[in-house]
């Protein structure tokens, strides 16, 4: 099997704190992998390293791009990494609040826009063609998520669940191959979480995605992930299929604490 992303022995230290140490991960194409762990285990830090926000102090990140080239991601800027096909959502929602829902999605098309700024200023034909094209594409995507009717609302006016969904739509609009979801179900009720699970399965099929997700909701993680990585104190504690991880004594200890005298 082809691996899409191969992370080897990545470590990062903030001051005296080893946030992530010797993290390795081999993501095969079209896999759905969960990253779990107690609060402060370093999960979001891993995402920030993968997306170029932090530069790891050691280790390598190799990514196989659309043209089968192997590319080192460490040291690349976040926007460059997104352009290569890694997109992410944020744990604490980071929408462009004062833009409309549609405009939020349109921003994701900017890096591959086919007109230059002079063509925009003088409103040349290419400008109109491109604007029509990306608007249609964005509306189509919003339609899939049942949000096309909200296209002209301001993002900040959306209810919380819809804002979470818009985060995913916006990431998908960059046309990624690897999608990183940072706690997509945070703050959702059980019913919304169930719908989200179906949605994640659906977009994975529809857009041929590889997905890595961080989640605290165990029903979601156990329900859809094929493989789970457990992180604790910046180290990989366990790795395997959901049922293996669930019964792993180390994992139970990390989450629930040691049973004294046992």
């Amino acid at each position: 099997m082809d691996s899409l992303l191969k992370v080897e022995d990545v470590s990062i230290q903030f001051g005296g704190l080893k946030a992530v140490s010797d993290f390795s991960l081999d993501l095969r194409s079209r896999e759905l992998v969960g990253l779990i762990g107690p609060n402060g285990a370093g999960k979001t830090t891993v995402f920030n390293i993968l997306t170029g926000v932090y530069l790891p102090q050691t280790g390598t990140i190799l990514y196989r791009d659309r043209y089968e080239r192997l590319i080192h991601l460490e040291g690349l800027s976040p926007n460059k990494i997104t352009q290569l096909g890694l997109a992410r959502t944020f744990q604490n929602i980071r929408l462009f609040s004062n833009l409309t829902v549609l405009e939020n999605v349109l921003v994701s098309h900017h890096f591959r826009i086919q007109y230059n700024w002079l063509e925009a200023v003088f409103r040349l034909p290419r400008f109109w063609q491109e604007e029509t094209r990306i608007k249609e594409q964005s509306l189509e995507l919003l339609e899939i998520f049942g949000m096309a009717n909200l296209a002209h609302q301001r993002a900040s006016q959306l209810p919380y669940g819809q804002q979470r969904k818009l985060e995913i739509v916006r990431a998908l609009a960059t046309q990624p191959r690897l999608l990183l979801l940072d706690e997509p179900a945070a703050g959702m009720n059980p019913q919304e979480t169930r719908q989200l699970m179906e949605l994640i399965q659906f977009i994975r099929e529809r857009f041929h995605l590889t997905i890595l997700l961080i989640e605290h909701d165990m029903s979601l993680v156990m329900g859809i992930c094929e493989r789970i990585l457990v992180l604790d104190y910046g180290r990989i504690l366990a790795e395997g299929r959901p049922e293996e991880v669930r019964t792993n004594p180390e994992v139970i200890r990390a989450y629930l604490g040691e049973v004294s005298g046992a």
Partner: protein
Amino acid sequence: MKTSQKFFLLFGLVFAFLVVFSILVYFRILDRYFSRLLLWGAIQSIIAISLNLITGFTGQLSLGQAGFVGLGAYTTAILTTQGWPFLFALLPSLAIAGLAGFLVGWPSLRLRGDYLAIMTLGFGEIIRSLIINLPDLTGGASGFKDIPGFHPDGDLNRLFLFLGIFISFFLVLFLVVNLIRSSYGRAIISVREDEIAARSMGVDIQLVKIGAFTLSALIAGWGGALQAPFLNYLAPSSYDFLKSVDFVVIIVLGGMGSITGTILAAFGLTYLQEWLRFLGDYRMVIYPLLMILMMLFRPQGLMGGREWTLETFIRKKISDSKVGNHG
């Protein structure tokens, strides 16, 4: 309404405005005082729009905008006194101001918020000190005198000034509005809204910031270049920190991220200063008072982030006439 129709309607309106006011100005139907204020308002608008581009839309607070204006003004003054025609002097003025913006844009990649503001403030002060300390070139602290206008003949000069300033005004408007309402504009606004998210959506925020700084400085320099032939005399005090703050006041009152608000506030404040002359020095109290009231009751500025467009008026007109028909 179709886009082409809208374009021709707008173009027609601008053309009609230029023709009508050319006649009013040339034949002195508008009194001299009023037309001076009109032109000064337009120049202030151009500079305020440039500041709104970098601060209102890109979200990078610049407290050194008067520095860019000064670069444009003094370059034009120096070149036109040496006999260069204005249009030829304009190009190097824009280039120098734009280059300064590009250079100031670089540190902006690493600086945020207050730190960036202090840095731009420092830049503005550097320009002012340069103006004062290069007396051979700039006239130093006593100012740059006898800058030629557009034409030796008074009436024609007035007409050319009007055309030059208002054509510039409409060109700047055209440039900024069309840029903002494109993918480039959305990228610019996304940087203001959330840099981290913008980067993660593939927006090259370094390019956006440097580009916005360069364009903003270039437009500010354009405003400055128009001041030289309009005022015929430049003083270094017109390009100090307090002048930069004046433009911040304009965009705060007009609404950050609103072009129409900026124009309203730029003309409004230009006239207000004159209307309040009967109060003598007390008018200086009105200005900050206005600011305090504004912050208390309408902190988002006159227009908030919104715009008046052609559609706003036409739709209103249509709905009015519909109401009329039913009644």
